[in-house]
């Protein structure tokens, strides 16, 4: 497990998502990266339906990452991230009476994986309830465990492929700079972005 940076790629005006993904893939291949299968990160959200005076309304996000296929990440909206076996899904089903899945909230990012030296580049298209919402890029550098050490290195790679997309590191990553990076950090980055996409989608709908 190395360090991971997840960031959205803003689709330029007048281009379809598919075009941009194709373009990005070409660029990455040009760099010398080789295809290494596909990946998928998905997220489902459960909402508490019991009005217990002790607990306010809660959201629990359940995420899976194909990089850790036997693991299930559960994040409460307070930010607490539980790393558990994939059987945690079954436990969530046992809580049907208390937590119910929010309809139309399933969001996922899937796409192609590329390996380039010790880097892993993933180009994922975000699908909210199966409709395309945007592009999420993930860059992982395996050998290092501290983001602070290799941020410049990663930035150089990202910029060499995608242009000046990340001048400053995302806020979430900035606070993680000097602590050892773990799989749950990746998931939390994804969740942050997923929540952003959802908000945008609902805002769009409202408009």
């Amino acid at each position, binding site marked *: 497990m190395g360090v991971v940076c997840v960031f959205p790629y803003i689709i330029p005006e007048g281009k379809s998502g598919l075009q941009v993904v194709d373009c990005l893939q070409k660029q990455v291949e040009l760099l010398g990266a080789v295809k290494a299968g596909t990946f998928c990160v998905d997220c489902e959200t459960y909402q508490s339906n019991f009005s217990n005076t*002790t607990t306010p309304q809660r959201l629990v996000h359940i995420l899976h990452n194909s990089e850790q296929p036997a693991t299930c990440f559960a994040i409460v909206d307070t*930010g*607490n991230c539980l790393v558990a076996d994939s059987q945690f899904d079954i436990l969530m089903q046992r809580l049907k009476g208390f937590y119910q899945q929010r309809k139309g909230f399933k969001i996922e990012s899937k796409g192609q994986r590329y390996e380039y030296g010790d880097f892993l580049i993933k180009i994922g298209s975000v699908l909210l309830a199966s409709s395309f919402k945007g592009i999420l890029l993930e860059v992982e550098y395996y050998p290092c465990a501290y983001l602070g050490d290799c941020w410049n290195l990663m930035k150089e790679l990202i910029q060499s492929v995608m242009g000046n997309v990340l001048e400053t590191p995302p806020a979430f990553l900035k606070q993680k700079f000097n602590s050892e990076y773990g799989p*749950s950090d990746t998931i*939390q980055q994804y969740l942050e972005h997923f929540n952003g996409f959802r908000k945008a989608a609902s805002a769009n709908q409202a408009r």
Partner: protein
Amino acid sequence: MRSKRRILSQFFIVSNFSMMKIEHEYSSITWPNVLDNFALLSGQLNSLSRLLKSEKIPPLKNYVLLPLALSPDKDLDLEKLTEGRLMIFNHEVVPVYLRTKPEPEVEEKFTELTCRVGISAHDNPQSYMVYSQGKAIKTENMLVEDATVTRKQLNTLNKITSNILDIINSARDEWESEANQKSAQPQTSSMADTNSLIQAITVGKGLKQPTPRRSENSHQNNNNVNSQQQSQKAPQSATISKAPSTIKTNIKAGSANHPYQRS
């Protein structure tokens, strides 16, 4: 008849031969050889006994002998047959030689004596001495001796019987104690304990802190929890999405006053 004779002669030959061998060639004879001979011998013995058992050969068991003719004359053949012991086969010798039972007087005496011996077993030998005065002393003494022998045997028998009885009794005691133990075995597990343990781990009976009934002060309790929750949230909101290690310290911080309140 013939087969019997044959077998007998074979048997004697073999046994003689092996005996001779054992006696004279013990230094050179080999063990397998000895065993071979022995097997041969035992085979012979087997067939011999089988032959004797079978009903075909009654003559070996008994002969009926009838004096057909008595004569006062000297019988040369008889003399030759008996190697000079019996010369005349007349009415005087026949009852003696062909008798199968003792004389009536002897028989009578014999039964009398056996009767007495039977009695004497229960009597004191001294009194018996007195009782049997006037009779032939020798017989008496023999009787007394017999009596003591009988007594001795009786005593030993009694002893043996009582020993056996003891053994049986002790064995029975053992069995019974074992059986008792077996009946005491259920004490290795107790149903009450099983139930209490299962209750404890399934519903927490006996494990919950002695708190008042929930319905009575659920409100107060809830308030308590609420405040607890808030106090717990306060540090957490600050450390949202931190590494697990910081959360651990959170637990520790909360342990000063137990954070997991029972609802």
